[in-house]
């Protein structure tokens, strides 16, 4: 029950996040071209190496919601396919969406849910973990991933692993 609420919450967040990202935040491409001056310090001419690393504020913010209509369309299609019991079709639609936005954590999360529904626990966990590494700042989605990992581990016969994952989810609450 709690999971259902969480899932609902993440869906709500998904629909809520759509527009703010597109208007408010720079696209990855734009953020890249910015000068790396913020990481410089001291005597720049002596130490050219200090240009080496991008400061965190320059790292593009990953899209927490699918930005393109194409991807939204594919997500809807996948949901309909899953509802109709066509798991293969749903997978194919989500993978097609991932080819368009390969670093969209939401899509990896959807695939994780799809695998969980098919009792492919190992895959579900991997996809949720992958989703987690691509998230910046969306705690609800992270929480959902950890919760999903916990359920996958529990069902896959790893109760202690499941406990650890639940703990991670709780920290984010």
């Amino acid at each position, binding site marked *: 029950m709690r999971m259902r609420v969480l899932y609902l919450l993440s869906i709500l967040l998904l629909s809520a996040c759509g527009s703010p990202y597109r208007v408010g935040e720079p696209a990855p491409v734009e953020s890249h071209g910015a000068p790396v001056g913020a990481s410089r310090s001291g005597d720049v001419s002596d130490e050219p190496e200090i240009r080496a690393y991008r400061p965190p504020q320059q790292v593009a913010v990953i899209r927490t919601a699918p930005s393109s209509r194409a991807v939204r369309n594919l997500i809807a299609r996948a949901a309909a396919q899953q509802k109709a019991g066509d798991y293969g079709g749903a997978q194919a639609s989500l993978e097609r969406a991932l080819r368009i936005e390969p670093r969209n954590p939401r899509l990896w999360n959807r695939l994780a849910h799809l695998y969980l529904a098919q009792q492919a626990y190992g895959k579900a966990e991997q996809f949720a973990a*992958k989703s987690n*590494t691509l998230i910046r700042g969306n705690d609800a989605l992270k929480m959902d991933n950890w919760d999903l990992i916990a359920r996958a581990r529990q069902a896959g016969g790893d109760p202690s692993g499941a406990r650890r994952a639940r703990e991670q989810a709780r920290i984010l609450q």
Partner: protein
Amino acid sequence: MTRGAKSRRKPAARKKTTRRKTSTRRRRTTPRRGLRHALIGLAVLGLLLLGGYSLYLSHQVRVAFEGKRWAVPARVYARPLDLYEGAELSPQQLRYELQILGYRHVRRPAGSAQWSQAGSRFVIHTRAFRFWDGEQAPLKLRLSVSGGSVTSLTDARGRHLDIVRLEPAEIGSIYPAHREDRVLVRREDLPDHLVQALLAVEDRRFFEHHGVDPRGIARAMWANLRAGGVVEGGSTLTQQLVKNFILDSRRSLWRKLNEALMALIVESRYGKDEILEAYANEIFLGQDGERAIHGFGLAALFYFNRPLKELRLHETALLVSLVKGGSYYNPRRHPKRALKRRNLVLQQMQKLGFINAASARRAQAQPLGVTARGRLQQHRYPGFIQLVRRQLARDYRPEDLTSEGLQIFTTLDPWEQHVAARNVAAGLAAIEKSRRIQRGLLQAAMVIASPQGGEVRALIAGRRAGVSGFNRALDAQRPVGSLAKAAVYLAALSQPARYSLATLVDDKAVRLELPNGDRWAPQNFDHRVHGRVPLHQALTHSYNLATVNLGLSLGLDAVVDMLHRLGVQKPVKPYPSVLLGAVPLAPFEVTQVYQTIAAGGFRAPLHAIREVLDAHHQPLQRYPLEVRQTVDAKAVYLLTANLQEVVQQGTARGLARYLGASFDVAGKTGTTDDLRDSWFAGFGGDRVATVWVGRDDNKPTGLAGSSGALPIFGRVMKALGLKPLAPVPPAGIEYHWVEEGSGFLSAKGCKGALRLPFVAGSEPETRSACARKGGPGLLQRLFDL
């Protein structure tokens, strides 16, 4: 099969001669009762033999009809192009995609498979296509392409479309050893004018006779006599089919008789439509290298790059004229001869009333219209197909692949393949010119994959695109040199309690005695020793000695284990030289290693296939996306930051020339002993790729990784529009200022301070003098402004 039939026929031929001799003898001898009995016996035997022989032929016919007719090779398709607003696309790429699909460029599209362009606006009428997830009906698309992407996408009525895809281009077929290819057409798919053309010149009483047509033979002889050359053939379509099916092409009376007998058998067993369908799929219509072009379906693609049903009258007439001799009338080699023959076909069609004079005239006025080269020859990717074959071989038996008519949907991006092939060739030529290397001496291989999904998007097997042969991308096992350092540093960074990017490592001389008694004393590329250097600098400048010292203190097993976790499958012996890349790997395997890094430690097995459908378009197998975390994401993030530095300031600085000075990309160069192999592996936001440059005879090229493979990587990625990397720091990564020389914690604005990512808790504890003071003084800050 032909050979088998030949050998079986020989004894029969002898029997025939014997029989004739017996009957001659009978007339000369006086009749005797015993002899009569013997003769009756012989006659019965003869009849029995004839019956048996007919049965044998009948069996042959059945086997041919029901077996070989369906030997359809597996068709291999590229990825379909997804179209949606925001999709990266240039008008140039779109034109290329449409061209390889065989769509016709017209002023105003009216039918399917046609397109037009006005500036940045395209109108495209697609073909219907059965994808693995359902049928896509023909679409009438309007799209605008500008600034490198699709800016609008609507249907003919202006309604917005979210996402559609073009059908995938066919990129090859996996056909049986005897190199016969087929695109099966059904009877109902045969255009009327094709059937009419066939009747007109090959067998006008086809629907009336029973397999053999004596009147047809007489008429053909007469017609040919009057025309002074071969205008019509005397063989019926059925006879021609039998000839193609079973018999060899030697001219002999016995063969003719056999042919006639079998034609009669075929006609008694099968209907006219079945015979026509078999004929249309069997007839030999040309040769494409070592591949025979059989049937009108394949011939339409081979000569016009369009499916049979899209051909117009003059094009169909040309195909029918090839029945007489695919090589003799080869329209690419003998255009005049082919044109003459085609017009003769049209004339015959008019004479028999199939077409009127005006249509005949119009069609005769058309040029031949064949494409410059056969489609599959022009757009064939033997290197990539080889990879597809190998991956399929895990799941299918060879005979299934070559007789079941499978449809195989792959990950190949034809545009990417095209751009990469062109730039690899041009890049090699440029290197040879500038370095005064004998032209054509260098070889190269390249693999491009999607970093997150592991889909192989392009594979360059060698310098000459489209030529099959040694597949360097898959099979050239060469030592990887410094590319292996990524595994050494990753193994170190996976132990944050011991190593961070700021940890000082010793770049000092190493002398080792190996178990076999050999001495090993590696050197730096510049033959200098650099003393204690920060770990990230050692990788950035590819210091060999620092790497060996680091690797030895980590333990060789840890490094070998890391190579395996990154995706190396073959066993690697834990010799110290492994630290400097004495591991022979193919470019494909290297790409797997760097894919795992590019994907933040999530290995996605490189694959070339997405879906397989059976001959009835039913999904047979999906190859879903697989990912598995094999390395800690935080360690990979640190390594990636270091590999970005390699490009910005280290051995791969040269990439700036192609991608711009501040372009965000990660990579590593590799060079082997005596400059035999030049490597580069790298990744941006949407592609991970490996380039190898060297010689097939493994002799030195004089090229380091930065002067051979790197410029080619740069050229290709520039042409493809690589996206910047912009990695996401995973949870548990913190940035701190450190002092370069000492490795102490520093502060923003302090002299020589550098901002580095750390696994939280692994940052240095000791603070530099400047940091202890709470940062740089006011004066210094002012100066820095």
